[in-house]
């Protein structure tokens, strides 16, 4: 008998394992029929998962935790039995801000603390001259992107709440917003940084993994009560994702996967650009050669087990950003979202 699961996702490179499980037969071999539904906002994914319209979802790890705590929304206990990836984000700025930074940079341009300090000098200069603040974009209040931007700014002594203006914008609008000056920089996931660089108006300043090594990013999220009622379908899904990740470690699997992603028509990127990301070769400036960055986005089988240290790190970031009070019972509820035990029970030898 085939088990049907409807899964919501945002078209991003870190949804790859779900798409591979569906399109390359790994889900079917486990007895699963997946219906992958592309969505336009994380809020939609969260609400449709909460209401049972989706059985599972590709979700920002901190958004899953926020849902379990009921932060800014209806409370709905979620569980994350799989980490779909680590890393994958980058901080991209306009070529004009990059040029301004060049003039005031004190230190190595590859050092995030040095570039953040340079940004601070620019921000103070603008403030003195009565010019508008620097506006930087990210994708959702509860996102690693938001926390990476904050971490980067703080490393250079910039106050993310006072010295710059942080705004949420859909990733598909980021490149255009840099071009028209609405934004001067942003932190988004693959492939949107590479798309912005390819447009010729942007440079990737730092990869996410240069700021936070092995950062938690997207998880597979399910409603806790639904998972408890159907442990077998969760197990099938975990196995299908794991086999997809194992298969994708073969270099020759990457071309067909890049072609499959491009064929969906949802990624706004060419097959070649997606292939370069899967291969870990990242073009950081218009016309430049690809920079080898094997950890830019990690989709390997070794990343799949949810790591409680990652959940704890996210909770600290949420507290630091003023999104939740620092209370032990909230911390416990947040940590309970991450379920390495579910992953281990399925994959134990």
């Amino acid at each position, binding site marked *: 008998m085939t088990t049907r699961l409807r899964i919501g996702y945002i078209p991003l490179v870190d949804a790859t394992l779900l798409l591979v499980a569906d399109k390359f037969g790994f889900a079917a071999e486990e007895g699963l029929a997946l219906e992958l539904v592309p969505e336009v906002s*994380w809020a939609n994914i969260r609400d*449709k998962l909460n*209401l049972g319209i989706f059985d599972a979802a590709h979700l920002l790890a901190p958004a899953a935790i926020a849902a379990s705590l009921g932060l800014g929304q*209806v409370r709905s206990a979620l569980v994350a039995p799989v980490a779909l990836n680590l890393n994958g984000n980058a901080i991209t700025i306009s070529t004009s801000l990059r040029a301004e930074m060049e003039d005031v940079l004190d230190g190595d341009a590859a050092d995030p603390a040095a570039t953040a300090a340079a940004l601070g000098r620019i921000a103070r200069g603008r403030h003195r001259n009565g010019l508008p603040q620097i506006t930087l974009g990210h994708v959702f209040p509860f996102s690693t992107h938001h926390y990476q931007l904050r971490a980067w700014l703080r490393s250079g002594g910039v106050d993310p709440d006072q010295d710059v203006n942080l*705004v949420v914008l859909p990733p598909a609008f980021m490149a255009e917003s840099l071009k028209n000056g*609405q934004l001067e920089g942003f932190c988004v996931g693959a492939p949107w940084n590479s798309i912005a660089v390819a447009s010729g108006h942007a440079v990737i300043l730092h990869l996410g993994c240069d700021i936070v090594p092995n950062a938690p990013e997207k998880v597979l999220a399910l409603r806790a009560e639904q998972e408890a009622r159907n442990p077998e379908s969760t197990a099938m899904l975990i196995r299908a994702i794991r086999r997809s990740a194992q298969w994708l470690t073969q270099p020759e699997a990457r071309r067909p996967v890049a072609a499959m992603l491009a064929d969906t028509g949802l990624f706004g990127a060419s097959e070649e650009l997606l292939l370069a990301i899967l291969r870990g070769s990242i073009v950081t400036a218009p016309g430049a050669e690809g920079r080898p960055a094997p950890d830019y986005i990690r989709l390997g089988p070794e990343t799949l087990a949810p790591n409680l240290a990652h959940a704890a790190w996210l909770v600290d970031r949420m507290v630091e950003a003023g999104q939740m009070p620092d209370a032990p019972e909230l911390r416990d509820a947040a940590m309970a979202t991450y379920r390495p035990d579910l992953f281990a029970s399925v994959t134990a030898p």
Partner: protein
Amino acid sequence: MPKSPRIVIIDQSPVRRAILAEGLREGGYTDVIHLEGTERMVERIVATEPDVIVIDLESPSRDVLEQMFQVSRAVPRPVAMFVDQSDTAMINAAIDAGVSAYVVDGLRKDRVKPILDMCISRFNAFSRLRGELEQAKSQLADRKVIDRAKGILMKAKGVTEEEAYALLRKTAMNDKKKLAEIAQSVVTAAELLQ
């Protein structure tokens, strides 16, 4: 009578937006504004000082609104999800209809509910309208292909229009297929044999 709450509509579909605005005005809500585009969304929303924000679920700007949940200097009046934890039936109906709403803190719940009921029913009415339109379009296309198939059969077999139609219908019933599908295969076959 209390002042009509200010309602901001963010909807990419101009037709649905008009249907919604009309419904709200008929319901006595006179202060309805709609916002277009995606630039500086939060700033523009804050500038309009809304009490209720209604947004269609196909809009990627929904995540932009989520930022307004966060108490920040950008948002003088905190914004909340439109219902409290207990009212899942209301959320269900709204998401099902394809709409969500955000309410500025301080607006009484009994004043919000009729606004949302109106939005949900108008969104559903729009879906029905769109469904009917699509059905009408496909019916028209079906009729055209059936007429062509009838013509082909009349000419090839020397039968009347009624006989041609009966032949198509009998084949469709025997093959357990739709009449339009059989008609399409007759048209395709005729094109191949030309």
